[in-house]
């Protein structure tokens, strides 16, 4: 059995991440991990006619970069598993139209990269493919116009609000044996703690991250000591504090090895309030900084817990609370 406990998978032949591709917008390119991205855009429209076209283009190019970096010929890539934040995941579908790869579109809001990586690892470890790509994108300007207000509206953002990352991240997952490898995956449950404010996603998502982290430790018998770094997706500064405290209450002190992609990606002086969010947030940090520093040996055991808020503008307007999810993957140098 490859299943541990109630929600965790232990991969028998842990699939490898053999290449990644990352593209980010100009603001992200001024952030903390600027040396780790493959391409930093000079402007976020990227010579396209609409923000949506620009997002599709960066997703497509990130996938192409990942395939190129993996040195696997494109015709040996058997699936593209991709998603994004837009209605009917159009960025992913449209990028797949250009790429011509067998396509599985997925949606897990900002947790999508972990969802893609865990599904991809299941496919590879299950023997259903040798090589595949998991990829996601998000774009500040497409997300703003879909979820919030027109860009030029002169409104103030709340201190709890987060900044959607413009970018795309892709990873090639393969049965080839090389580090780093995806060893465990914990599929999260949808947790709703009654938060309803779409301008405060960190508070809404933190309990989902906590639930998945606890479940991961219980299912695997691991402790925080088994990891060099525990990284949540996009809880931001408020959600990160909450998650840390809730875990401490449950007897897991992870404070010395815990961080959050949404806190890290921008410098505080970049004025993004509570931090970053978006599918690309966890993706560009994982495919950029984490992947490259694992190759360098700075990190050897990382637990990525990507978080997502599963609401829509309609559900918010109808007063519904926000259901949230977190999926965890262990990435290790074996």
């Amino acid at each position: 059995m490859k299943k541990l406990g109630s929600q965790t998978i232990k991969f028998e032949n842990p699939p490898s991440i053999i290449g990644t591709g990352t593209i980010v917008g100009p603001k992200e390119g001024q952030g903390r991990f600027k040396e780790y991205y493959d391409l930093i855009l000079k402007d976020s429209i990227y010579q396209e006619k609409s923000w949506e076209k620009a997002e599709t283009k960066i997703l497509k190019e990130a996938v192409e970069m990942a395939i190129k970096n993996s040195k696997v010929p494109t015709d040996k890539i058997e699936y593209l598993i991709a998603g994004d934040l837009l209605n009917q995941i159009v960025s992913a579908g449209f990028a797949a139209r250009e790429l011509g790869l067998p396509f599985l579109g997925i949606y897990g809001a900002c947790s999508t990269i972990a969802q893609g990586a865990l599904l991809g690892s299941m496919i590879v470890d299950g023997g259903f493919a040798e090589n595949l790509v998991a990829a996601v994108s998000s774009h500040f300007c497409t997300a703003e116009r879909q979820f919030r207000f027109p860009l030029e509206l002169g409104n103030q953002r709340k201190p709890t609000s987060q900044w959607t990352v413009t970018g795309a991240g892709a990873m090639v997952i393969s049965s080839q044996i090389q580090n780093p490898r995806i060893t465990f995956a914990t599929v999260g449950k949808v947790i709703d703690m009654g938060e309803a404010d779409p301008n405060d996603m960190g508070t809404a998502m933190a309990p989902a991250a906590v639930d998945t982290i606890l479940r991961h430790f219980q299912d695997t018998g691991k402790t925080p000591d088994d990891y060099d770094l525990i990284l949540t997706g996009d809880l931001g500064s408020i959600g990160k504090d909450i998650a840390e405290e809730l875990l401490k209450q449950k007897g897991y002190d992870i404070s010395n090895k815990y961080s959050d992609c949404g806190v890290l990606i921008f410098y505080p002086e970049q004025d993004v309030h509570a931090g970053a969010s978006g599918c690309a947030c966890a993706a560009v940090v994982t495919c950029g900084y984490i992947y490259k520093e694992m190759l360098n040996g700075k990190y050897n055991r990382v637990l990525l817990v990507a978080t997502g808020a599963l609401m829509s503008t309609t559900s918010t307007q109808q007063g519904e609370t926000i259901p949230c999810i977190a999926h965890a993957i262990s990435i290790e140098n074996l």
Partner: protein
Amino acid sequence: MPVLTKEQQDYKRFAKNKKPKPPLLKNMIMAFIVGGIICTIGQIILNFFVSRGLTPGQAGGPTAIIMVFLGSFLTGIGVYDKIGKYAGAGSIVPITGFANSIVSPAMEFKREGFVFGVAAKMFVVAGPVLVYGISSATLIGLIYYLLNM
């Protein structure tokens, strides 16, 4: 609104203390200063028209037109949202802010076409203001009329 369980209510209380408070005093001072500057500019324009022979009542119309133009122009060149970031209500409440609330969605949704984009989306922000502004003005006007009959 959905009914929250006890666990959810406890979490709400716990999380509330973690959230940063908006800098209310700073926001109010900035709104006062920027709102005041916008109104002073309006007053200067109105005084100019009065000095050229219009009555204060007549000067209101052209003044509003110029202020709406300024708000729209600053929105078009991407400045008004930057003012709004610091000024908050100070730049939302004056008529320049109303112009911003109509021009910004019109610009944003131009790519969806002139019918379903620009025209249909133009009032997404300003629409509620118009509906309730006109409705309440009509209601108050009616009450005023009845009281003075």
